[in-house]
């Protein structure tokens, strides 16, 4: 049905990319499902670790901002899987930088498609497969930890959460694309990518909920774009964002997406001017 609708329009070609990539991934579905399940193992260690903290003899909440209970923490880390399922773009930066470095970009430049939208569709296809698999893998995991999922979100929180996931996806795509474009200026960036990925992992709140960090740090890191890749969606759904803050939180998120869009356009323009098609 979608095919009939899109045929003849300029969106058609991106639809083809999307469906081809999806089919490619489906060819390795067993491999995929296995990976999807393994990814929950860290949740297990995290639950045990925090359980041990909350049940240790000398436990006392330190009085840092944002009191969290054990259910809050477990829910946070569980929802983090959902949020990162939207925002993480494994391999995207590397692929783009290699296309640039090895001159493979030529293939796309001579075609009447936008490389940015090509990459976006490519990643969207991955995400669709991810969510298809998640429909099978997520429910049992969430069922197992149901006693920790105490907070029942309000309608506003659900809406805010879904909007924040859209922000998460775009932040992920745009930032990865932007970093990949650095290859126009620096030939060898693969190691630099490690640094970036590590920072992203930390600043998105994937390792520790950002509000638990020393308050001098929290005030800054929670407003960085990375916080929208994990921290904010989680905080919204566990009920830690008050209704009157919701607008600010989401507004700043959209602001970042806008800034990134402009930066991507500029980087692409300047980058392709510099591009020398080495080895192409």
């Amino acid at each position, binding site marked *: 049905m979608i095919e009939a609708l899109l045929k003849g329009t300029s969106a058609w070609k991106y639809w083809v990319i999307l469906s081809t990539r999806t089919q490619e991934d489906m060819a390795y579905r067993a491999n995929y499902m296995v990976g999807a399940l393994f990814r929950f*193992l860290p949740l297990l260690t995290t639950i045990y670790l925090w359980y*041990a903290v909350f049940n240790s003899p000398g436990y006392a909440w330190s009085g840092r901002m944002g009191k969290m209970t054990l259910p809050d923490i477990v829910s946070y880390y569980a929802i983090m899987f959902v949020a990162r399922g939207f925002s993480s773009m494994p391999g995207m930066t590397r692929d783009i930088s290699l296309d640039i470095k090895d001159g493979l970009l030529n293939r796309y430049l001579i075609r009447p498609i936008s490389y940015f939208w090509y990459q976006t569709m490519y990643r969207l296809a991955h995400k669709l497969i991810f969510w298809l698999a998640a429909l099978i893998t997520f429910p049992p995991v969430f069922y197992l930890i149901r006693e920790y999922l105490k907070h029942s979100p309000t309608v506003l929180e659900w809406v805010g959460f879904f909007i924040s996931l859209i922000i998460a996806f775009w932040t992920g795509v745009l930032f990865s694309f932007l970093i990949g474009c650095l290859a126009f200026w620096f030939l060898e960036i693969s*190691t630099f990518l490690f640094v970036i990925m590590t920072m992203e992992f930390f600043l998105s709140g994937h*390792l*520790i909920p950002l509000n*638990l*960090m020393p308050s001098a740090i929290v005030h800054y890191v929670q407003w960085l774009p990375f916080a929208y890749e994990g921290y904010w969606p989680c905080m919204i759904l566990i009920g830690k964002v008050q209704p009157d803050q919701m607008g600010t939180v989401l507004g700043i998120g959209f602001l970042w997406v806008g800034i990134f869009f402009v930066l991507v356009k500029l980087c692409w323009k300047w980058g392709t001017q510099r591009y020398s098609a080495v080895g192409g």
Partner: protein
Amino acid sequence: MKDFLRYCRMTLLMMKNCLIREMQFRSNFIIRLFTEVIWLGMQFIYVEVLYSLTQSIGGWNVWEMVILLGTNHIINQLFEAFFFDNCTKLVDQIRLGDLDFVLVKPINSQFMVSLRYTDYASITNSMAGFAMIGFALHKLGTAITPVEVLLFLLLVLNGIFILYSMMFCLSILTFWIGRASNLFELYYQLTQFTRYPGEIYRFGLRMVLLTAIPMLVVSNFPAKVLVGGLLSGRLFYACAIGVSFLLITTWLWSMGLKRYRSASS
């Protein structure tokens, strides 16, 4: 004995080759060090956050936890230095038929594929682990005897071999099931269990982590030597696990080679 020396010489030769290669990408090396420092810094913040809420987790106080972190860091880095790249490369070698080049050489093939590439940045990075342990021991005011140092190093080596065995076995499953990149995901996720005290896990899971997937033997045991409390029975147990895992790899490797089809070469 002659063979042993020959293999030692081979190892040094392969390491030398990699060093020459590495020296061509010096900036790469420095960035790698930088990344590890950031990573360790993040772990420290994590520990700081956890211990801002309590004095002890699973019976380990903050400096004992730092010792565990340091031990884990040393083991993981040294494993990465010698084996990690080789194991990941092995998958493609088997799939694409490049293993031919190894098999025709007059040398033990498992030895060759396992030690071919050395990652020097990881060796340097492991030093940070020793520094962490030293600092934590100083803070605890514990005096360490030479025997304990030796036992610690022995168990560290043992841990590296266990990690190697698990990763190597996962890699050579390629002989049977084709593309299995997600099995590395399993490896990554399993190493999570080496980071924290074994005491935090429930009994059943702890048993699994001590036997079938001996992640607690990898880093908890050596760390225990330094914080006190490793019984000699456990020492023998750890080494038995290490040796049997290594034996399994050689057996699985020979089984796998029988299935090798040298595809697409």
